[in-house]
């Protein structure tokens, strides 16, 4: 069922049927994009269960908003990623809703892992923490264009469509993000160099200033896992 690769695309062929509210078109849309939308949400939220919630809500919102789809156009990926991006923005705003969501999850999920998955999961968790740390240095708008254009595979025009902003805005956000990231990486390299030479303690990650409400739900999520 999940054999569809995340980079498959509908090339616009589903537009008409999605717009008309055809049930099977949504089933296809889900099979094509659920994984990609989940990954996108994961990059934006840095949190597996928030990402799951964002993914699910994205498709429900897509159904309700189907009439907003233009009859003509290309892939529906930008549309879905746009919805997911907005949902991810909201994901951290309501801790209460998150709690309710966790409570709904069946308990046996915590133990349904295969042993061989565990190593991969630890690795993934470390990587995800790294993503969170780096993205935490950026502004929300910058994080979003990075998630869309760099990791999500959208081009600038599609990202603009997803976010409902002019292409120029996407461009300038990316360029600011790039400058900020470069500075950050250079700092890190200098710090690492110093610590190798024993001049100072390795940088303390935890206390770093992260932007906005980033990842308030994290400890909660790890407890539940």
């Amino acid at each position, binding site marked *: 069922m999940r054999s569809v690769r995340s980079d498959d695309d509908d090339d616009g062929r589903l537009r008409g049927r999605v717009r008309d509210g*055809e049930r099977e078109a*949504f089933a296809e849309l889900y099979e094509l994009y*659920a*994984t990609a939308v989940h*990954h996108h949400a994961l990059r934006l939220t840095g949190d597996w269960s928030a990402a799951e919630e964002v993914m699910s809500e994205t498709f429900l919102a897509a159904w309700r908003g189907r009439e907003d789809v233009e009859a003509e156009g290309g892939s529906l990926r930008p549309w879905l990623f746009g919805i997911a991006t907005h949902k991810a923005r909201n994901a951290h705003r309501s801790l209460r809703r998150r709690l309710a969501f966790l409570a709904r999850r069946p308990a046996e999920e915590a133990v349904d892992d295969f042993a061989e998955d565990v190593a*991969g999961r630890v690795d993934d968790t470390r*990587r995800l923490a790294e993503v969170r740390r780096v993205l935490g240095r950026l502004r929300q708008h910058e994080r979003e264009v990075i998630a869309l254009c760099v990791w999500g595979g959208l081009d600038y025009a599609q990202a603009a469509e997803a976010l409902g902003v002019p292409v120029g805005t996407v461009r300038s956000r990316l360029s600011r993000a790039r400058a900020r990231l470069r500075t950050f990486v250079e700092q890190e390299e200098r710090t690492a160099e110093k610590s190798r030479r024993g001049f100072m303690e390795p940088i303390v990650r935890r206390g770093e200033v992260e932007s906005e409400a980033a990842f308030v739900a994290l400890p909660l999520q790890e407890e539940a896992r």
Partner: protein
Amino acid sequence: MNEHEEREELSRLLPVVPVERGLPAERHSHHKDVLMQLIDRDRRRRTSPLRLPRPALAPALVAGAVAVALAAGLTVGIGAGQDGGGAAARPGAGSGSTGGGSRSAAVTLGRIAAVALRTDVTPVGEDQFVYVRSRTADNEGVFDGPVKLGKLRERQVWFSQREESTIDVGLIREYGQDWPIEVGVPDGTDPKDAGLPAGIERPTYAWLASLPTDPAALLKLLYARTPGGEDDGDRDQVVFDRIGDLIGEQILPSATAAAIYRAAARIPGVTELPDAVDAAGRHGIAIARVDTAAGTRTEWIFDRTTLDYLGERTVFSRDTKRGRKGAVLFTSAVLERAVVDKRGQEPSGRRRVSRS
């Protein structure tokens, strides 16, 4: 710096994102179910604002009916709904949908249809009976209560092939005794007027052979004639189940069988499952449909290699108050189909029909 170069540099500056671990398959399909349920709910609300929730499932009712019949020594009755007046007259009515099942289901049903079309079926005479022997178990729990699957038992059926109206539909031999299938005759009515002619309520080989072999036309006819109205719940499911009855306990002419499988592929929500098991423990691929309101999935099981029909099964597609996801409500395995000359006569080997 162009778009490509900028993206390249950005990805160098960024850590590698973990994408190996996607959503577990179970969560993936759970959220799909949630989506499909919302869609079905919205579509029902739009087309029929007064629709009532679907009543409790048929298997419980049937078990109850059999229990009553056992106690009273009665025959198995059939309501005299002669015209079979279906309310919804077109496929996907009330759904606003024009598309059918999933693509893989359509491909598989196309293959099943091709096999059916190549299979020789000897026509059944009007004075003969269609005989089907199966193994089956169904829900024997209390009405609307938790599902309790009964023991597997043998079931044999004989269906009259008479074209004109009759109250004598056939016979079921099950639970170790015979249950004539008769049309109920209201008091004061001449039995001749109460009988049931060949039709969707009493399918005979000749009636089946008279059906259109164009899948679209056939499906339209099935939607029009399958009894039950808009208030019976998911109309697509009602028709899917009716087709399931036809392929399960009848003998279909090759062309009708091929057309009916292709027609089924056009029913919204029909999907393919890679594995299902029948009541005889035989594994195969399944053509399935989820009744989202009821939380059940009905599966027609076919041999993976020969694509012969094996049996049917209904399971819960999600946790409900009546059973956990995956719990079986009904299961069957067709072991033999044959044509015999007399009601209640078990076939001798040579008259058996080739396909299951």
